[in-house]
């Protein structure tokens, strides 16, 4: 069958875009809190205040004339990331993993000149990547030294963990792995692999690429069966504490694993996508309803994480 019936989807508890917009985002995310997540610089400052670990902020470029100084700034580091503070959907993020005398290298091995980087920064300031073309600022962040645990599963890009947090409870999680087809990007609709994660222990449940189940990474050939995300409780705690930090009821936290620093919050999303359901092969709705109908609780972050692990984990 090419189409599923709405009945069947409802029965499986699949959350649709319209319901997500009306019943969760509009209802639980206060409009005034959006800038906190839409602006990564603000997120970072709030996170630092709340003692939530994030990749180190090296510099902020606010004005076009500062771009001239970019050469001096970036020459201090071997690797770094330039991103727009108000970009959406991973747009405008430039990752430089290596710097040699010949230039700067992206994870894909593509070389860039200093002027390419300056142009990128200038585009960011003009608002090219920001929502509605607003003038923006460019952030230069320290490069995350990725935990080698994912090396077997990653191709050209950054593996990250997306956790959906509802009213402070982690409700679903997935690992996003870039592939050759996704051009090093971790967006599922571009061909990245989504691996559903067991909330109880961070083990892989199932994996999909372009809506089809896969058993192994298409580029590296490694099986997902044995995949287990380390620092699992720490990751869930980090994600869960984003609720206390932002007060957004329905949010997606993107977390990366640093070799030395452990889980780091990369960014938050007030309108997380629904592909996570496909990666987990299960619907979000029953879990959201469960949390929504819960009696008043005075749970701390750790208690919420524990509760979610028990309720939504698969043992």
């Amino acid at each position, binding site marked *: 069958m*090419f189409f599923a019936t709405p009945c069947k989807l409802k029965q499986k508890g699949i959350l649709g875009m319209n319901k997500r917009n009306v019943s969760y985002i509009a209802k639980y995310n206060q409009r005034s809190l959006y800038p906190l997540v839409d602006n990564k610089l603000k997120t970072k400052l709030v996170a630092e205040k709340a003692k939530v670990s994030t990749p180190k902020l090296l510099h902020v470029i606010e004005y076009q004339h500062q771009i001239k100084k970019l050469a001096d700034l970036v020459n201090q580091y071997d690797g770094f990331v330039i991103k727009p503070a108000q970009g959406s959907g991973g747009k405008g993020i430039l990752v430089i993993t290596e710097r040699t005398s010949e230039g700067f290298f992206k994870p894909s091995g593509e070389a860039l000149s200093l002027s390419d980087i300056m142009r990128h920064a200038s585009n960011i300031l003009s608002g090219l990547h920001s929502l509605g073309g607003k003038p923006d600022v460019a952030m230069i962040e320290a490069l995350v030294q990725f935990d080698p645990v994912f090396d077997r599963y990653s191709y050209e890009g950054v593996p990250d963990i997306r956790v959906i947090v509802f009213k402070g409870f982690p409700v679903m999680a997935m690992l996003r792995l870039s592939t050759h087809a996704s051009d090093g990007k971790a*967006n599922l609709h571009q061909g990245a692999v989504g691996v559903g994660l067991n909330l109880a222990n961070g083990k892989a449940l199932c994996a999909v690429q372009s809506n089809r189940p896969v058993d192994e990474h298409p580029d590296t050939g490694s099986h997902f069966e044995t995949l287990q995300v380390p620092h699992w409780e720490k990751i869930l705690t980090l994600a869960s504490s984003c609720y206390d930090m932002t007060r957004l009821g329905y949010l997606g936290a993107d977390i990366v694993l640093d070799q030395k620093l452990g889980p780091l919050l990369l960014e938050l999303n007030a309108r997380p996508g629904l592909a996570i359901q496909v990666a987990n092969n299960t619907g979000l709705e029953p879990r959201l309803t469960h949390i929504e109908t819960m009696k008043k609780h005075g749970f701390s972050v750790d208690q919420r994480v524990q509760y979610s692990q028990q309720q939504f984990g698969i043992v």
Partner: protein
Amino acid sequence: MSSRAQVYLLSFIFIFIGIGLTIYKNSELEFPLLPGERKAIWTVEAKIEFKATDKPVTVSFALPHNPPEMGILDEDFTASGYGFGWDSNQQERRAQWARRKANGKQVLFYKVQVFKQSDAPAHEQNAIPPVETKTPDLSPSLKTTISQLVTYVYNRSADNTTFATELIRLINDKEPIEDIQLLLGNQGLSKTRLALNALALAKIPARVARGLQLEDGRRNQKLTTLIEIFDTDHWVFFNPKTGQKGLPGNFLLWQRGGSSLLDVEGGESSKASFSIIKNSQPAKSFAILHGAENQAALVDFSIYSLPIEQQNVFKSILLVPIGAIVVVLMRILVGVKTSGTFMPILIAIAFIETTLITGLIIFLVIVSIGLFIRSYLSRLNLLLVARISAVVIVVISIMAGMSILSHKLGISEALSVTFFPMIILAWTIERMSILWEEEGPKEVFTQGGGSLLVATLAYLLMTNQYVEHLTFNFPELLLALLGCIILLGQYTGYRLTELRRFQPLAED
């Protein structure tokens, strides 16, 4: 009250009022629900503009007087601060506005509603014979040449009508005979003037008539000049520019004979322009519209009370919500991705001016050339605003190029290219180019295709004659539409595309 209940209540009220007013207007005021076979009523508005020079002002303006094949339903003279009177004689009917003192730009309106009388006789029964025509004051050489022409035509005709037919045919001939070539070229006579002079020398009573080609939605029209000649007992019309005999279809004869259309004393730079709009309503509702009857309040505070020029603008504006609901349906119920939320409506409006197929081709050509040029611009390290401005200029150049090329090739459709909103096109090109770089060509085609699909659907709906009729004649239906849109804003069901997207999840 919960927000959900408020939404239902609000949308119910809107839909109720909208549909209710529509039913009332239909049953009580007899506005037809369908555009059908009703009598077409043309409303013509003449706008007289001039600059007053701080002196007493008298404006005399020729009005239609028993126009053939047309009946006058109602007239309206609007000019604040001016006294109104008639300045008529047996031949002409003229309106006269006067004011003791005025300064600066003055605008006077005359509005007339006419309908076509299909049972009008072919000839006027009691045509007024013309007063004796004077021989025109011509230089001897000119007179000789024209006389030669008259003799030439006289020998090739039987009566006044055939004389005029042959004369005008010769004047309009692609390769005119030497005399005419000389008269039109060297002497600089207009075709009309030449024909009138020749007719005068031939002692055939002739005069100038001016009229308006009735076409729906026209603004800033000028009068068309015709020549009429008197043959034994009736007047015969000729179009001096085409040679066509008789009155064109849907033609309102504004002025016959007479000296000038508009005389302004105490003012300068005067001009008259005409706007035309067509309504398909029964004559009865017009009686209600203009009668001072008790029900008329609803009509009186409606779009009909606006000047025609604004009515024509509103005719287009009222179609925008139709485009909006298409966007809402396609996004919320179907889940089509478009580039820019309301871009498809703007494209659809452009399509209305260019027609669908031409519009699609023009859009695709401009966007592809634009994307190509934009990919080069991206290598030049330009600031964003400068780059988009550059794209705007490129888009304008492509438009100009397409217009000129198509004109040379004789394709008139592509001339309508100018109706495309160029800033929007430039932004589209910019966004698609970024999308191409960041998400690949597939996403560009998905979003571009989605936009065109939605635009096409919106176009088809917006140009549908029933939809057009309803939105213009029953603007209160907008309230019902608003109610529906508010309801749709609460829709939490699945989108059609999600049924496909989540299909693997539904499998057991």
